[in-house]
C-alpha cells in the first residue's frame, strides 16, 4: 500500500549498482585523498604485503625460522648428499627430493599467506541492530550486559553460539576468535606460529598438505642421509665419512627431531580430518563421548572417506574480507531521523555521492541526498546520474555514478564534486571496533616440535568455556579471563564476571 506515494516515487527505480566491482577506481582528483584499500584499515592484528595480496599474523619470526630450517636442510641435502647418491644409487633421488621440496614450500606459503577464513566485523548498523535485539530479549537489565549466547540445534546436538564482543557478531558454529590476530575465524583450528598465521576454514587443507608433505620430506631426507653416510663409511670408514660430509650430521639432527613431531602432528591431523573435528574442538572435548552418552559430532558426515574429501577437496570459499577492495569514501550509515530535505541542507556537502567504483549501494542514498542541495550550491550541476556500471557515458569520469531511472532525476551532468568529507566507514569501523586493550598478553607457543599434541594447546581461543571441566588440557580459567578481558573495554569488567552469570540468560532465536 503506497497510497501516499506519487508517481515520481514509483518511477524512481533504482538500478542496482554492481556490487562486486573489483576494478580500481580512477579518480580525477588525484590531488585529493588517495583511495585506500581495505586492508589498510583492517581492524585485526594482521600484516599485509604486496598491496593486500598476502596476509599474515603479526608475529612472523617463527615462520621465518621454519622457512630457514626447510631451506637450509634441503639446500645441504641437495648440495652434499645428492651428488653422491645420484651417482651411487640413482638420479631419481634428487628428483623426488626436489618435487617434495617444491610441494612443501608451495603449501607452506599458501598456508601462511592466505586468509584463513576471517569473518569481517559487523558494521555499526548491524551491531546496533543486534544489540537492540539482545536488549529486547533480555529486558534491558542494569549496567552490566549479561553474557550473550544463542542456542541452536544442529543435527540433533545443541550448540551454543557465543557473541563476540570484539567483532560484534554471534560467532557461527565452529568459529572462534583468535586473540593473537584479533579476528574471528571460521572453522578455527588453531593459530600456528610455525606458519605465522591462523589455520581455519580456508587454509586448513593447505596446512594439512604442508605437514603431510613435510613428513615425507623429512623421512626422505633422514633416510637418504643415513644411507649416504653408511655407504660412505663402508668405503672410507665412519669417521672419515663424517669428515667428508659434515653437513650430513646437521641434517640428521634436524630431521631426527623433526620426524617425531611432524609425523606425529600429521597423524593427529589425519585423525581430526577423518572425524571432522577441529583442534579446538578436540582439545575442549566438545564432541567427546566422555561428556555424555548422547554427545556426538554433528558436523561429521558419518564416514571417514566423506569427511576427508570434504576437508581436502571440498569447495574453497572465497575470502570474506575484501582486502584489495577500495574503502568507500561515503559512510553508509543510517541517516538520523530526518524531518525532510532541509536536514541535508546547504551545509551538507554533496560530496558524499562521489562514491567509489566499488559500488556502494548506500552511495545511492547519498547521491540522492546530495541531489537535494545542488541547486543551492555552486556545483549545481549535480551529477545525479546513477548507472549500474562504473563507466559513465557522461562527463563523469569512470566513477560509480548511479542513475535514478527515467525522468526522475535528470539533473544535468556537470562539474563533478570533490570527494567526500565524510570519513570512510572503514576508518570509522576500525576506530569503533578496535577494542582498547591493554592486553599485551600473548600466548606463548614455545613448545617446539617435540610435543605434537601439546603443540596444539598453545592457543585456546578466547572463549570462556562454560563448564569448567571443558578444557582438559588445563589452560587455566584465569588465563582465558585475561584474554577475554582485553577485548571490549566496556564489557571487559563484565567479562570477568561473565562466567558466573553465564547461562543465566540465553537468547533463543528462531
Amino acid at each position, binding site marked *: 500500500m503506497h497510497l501516499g506515494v*506519487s508517481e515520481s516515487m514509483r518511477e524512481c527505480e533504482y538500478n542496482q549498482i554492481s*556490487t562486486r566491482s573489483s576494478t580500481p577506481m580512477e579518480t580525477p582528483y588525484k590531488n585529493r585523498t588517495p583511495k585506500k584499500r581495505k586492508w589498510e584499515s583492517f581492524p585485526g592484528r594482521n600484516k599485509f604485503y604486496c598491496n593486500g595480496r598476502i596476509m599474515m599474523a603479526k608475529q612472523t619470526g617463527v615462520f621465518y625460522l621454519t622457512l630457514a630450517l626447510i631451506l637450509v636442510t634441503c639446500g645441504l641435502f641437495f648440495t652434499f648428499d645428492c651428488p653422491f647418491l645420484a651417482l651411487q644409487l640413482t638420479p631419481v633421488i634428487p628428483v623426488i627430493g626436489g618435487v617434495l621440496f617444491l610441494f612443501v614450500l608451495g603449501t607452506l606459503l599458501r598456508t601462511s599467506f592466505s586468509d584463513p577464513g576471517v569473518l569481517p566485523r559487523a558494521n555499526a548498523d548491524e551491531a546496533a541492530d543486534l544489540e537492540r535485539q539482545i536488549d529486547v530479549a533480555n529486558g534491558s537489565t542494569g549496567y552490566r550486559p549479561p553474557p550473550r549466547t544463542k542456542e541452536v540445534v544442529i543435527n540433533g546436538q545443541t550448540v551454543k553460539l557465543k557473541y563476540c564482543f570484539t567483532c560484534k557478531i554471534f560467532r557461527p558454529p565452529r568459529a572462534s576468535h583468535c586473540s593473537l590476530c584479533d579476528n574471528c575465524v*571460521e572453522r578455527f583450528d588453531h593459530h600456528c606460529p610455525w606458519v605465522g598465521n591462523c589455520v581455519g576454514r580456508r587454509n586448513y587443507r593447505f596446512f594439512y598438505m604442508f605437514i603431510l608433505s613435510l613428513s615425507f620430506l623429512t623421512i626422505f631426507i633422514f633416510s637418504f642421509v643415513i644411507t649416504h653416510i653408511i655407504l660412505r663409511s663402508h668405503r672410507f670408514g665412519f669417521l672419515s665419512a663424517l669428515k667428508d660430509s659434515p653437513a650430513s650430521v646437521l641434517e640428521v639432527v634436524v630431521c631426527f627431531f623433526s620426524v617425531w613431531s611432524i609425523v606425529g602432528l600429521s597423524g593427529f591431523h589425519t585423525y581430526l580430518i577423518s572425524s571432522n573435528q577441529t583442534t579446538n574442538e578436540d582439545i575442549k572435548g566438545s564432541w567427546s563421548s566422555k561428556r555424555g552418552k548422547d554427545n556426538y559430532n554433528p558436523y561429521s558426515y558419518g564416514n571417514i572417506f566423506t569427511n576427508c574429501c570434504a576437508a581436502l577437496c*571440498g569447495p*574453497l570459499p572465497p575470502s570474506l574480507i575484501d582486502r584489495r577492495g577500495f574503502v568507500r569514501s561515503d559512510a553508509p550509515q543510517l541517516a538520523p531521523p530526518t524531518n525532510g530535505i532541509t536536514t541535508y541542507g546547504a551545509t551538507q556537502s554533496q560530496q558524499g555521492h562521489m562514491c567509489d567504483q566499488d559500488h556502494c549501494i548506500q552511495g545511492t542514498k547519498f547521491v540522492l541526498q546530495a541531489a537535494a542541495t545542488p*541547486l*543551492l550550491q555552486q556545483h549545481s550541476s549535480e551529477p545525479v546520474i546513477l548507472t549500474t556500471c562504473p563507466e559513465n557515458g557522461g562527463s563523469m569520469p569512470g566513477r560509480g555514478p548511479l542513475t535514478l531511472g527515467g*525522468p526522475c532525476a535528470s539533473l544535468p551532468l556537470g562539474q563533478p564534486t570533490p570527494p567526500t568529507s565524510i570519513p570512510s566507514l572503514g576508518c570509522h569501523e576500525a576506530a569503533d571496533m578496535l577494542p582498547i586493550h591493554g592486553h599485551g598478553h600473548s600466548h606463548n607457543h614455545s613448545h617446539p616440535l617435540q610435543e605434537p599434541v601439546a603443540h596444539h594447546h598453545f592457543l585456546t581461543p578466547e572463549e570462556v568455556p562454560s563448564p569448567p571441566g571443558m578444557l582438559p588440557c588445563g589452560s587455566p580459567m584465569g588465563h582465558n579471563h585475561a584474554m577475554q578481558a582485553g577485548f571490549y573495554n566496556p564489557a571487559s569488567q563484565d567479562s570477568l564476571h561473565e562466567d558466573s552469570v553465564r547461562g543465566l540468560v540465553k537468547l533463543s532465536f528462531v
Partner: protein
Amino acid sequence: IRPLQDLRQPAVSSKVFVQRDYNSGTISKFQTKFPSELESRLDKQQFEETIQTLNNLYAEAEKLGGKSYLEGCLACLTAYTIFLCMETHYEKVLKKISRYIKDQNEKIYAPRGLLLTDPIERGLRVVEITIFEDRSIGSGR
C-alpha cells in the same frame, strides 16, 4: 531548473538485518522469518521466496559432490595455479547470486522503496534490507 521539491530523494529510514540460520550447520543459510518492519511494504511470501532462493544458491555453491571434488583434486594437482585462469565454482555461483539480487531489486524491492544488499558485502553475516522513507510527494516531475 526544477524546484527542489520535485525531486524525490528517499532517505534511509531504517535497515533490517536478516540473520543467519545455523540450524543446518555451518552452511550459508539465512532465516526466512519475515521481519515485522517490512510488513507494510512487502508480501511475506515474496520475502520468503527471495531468501529461499538465496539459500538454495548458497547451498549450490557449497555443495559437496563429484563436481566439487573433481575441481578440488584438479586444483591440488596443478598446485592451485589453475585458479589463475579459472574461477572456482563458488565464485561462479556468487556471481549468479549477485545477478539475482540485482534482478530482485529492480523488479520487486526498489519499486517498494527497499534495497537488498548482497550478503557477500556483509561477510555473509546478514542480508541487509534498507528501507527508504516513504514520503508522499507533492508534484510529480
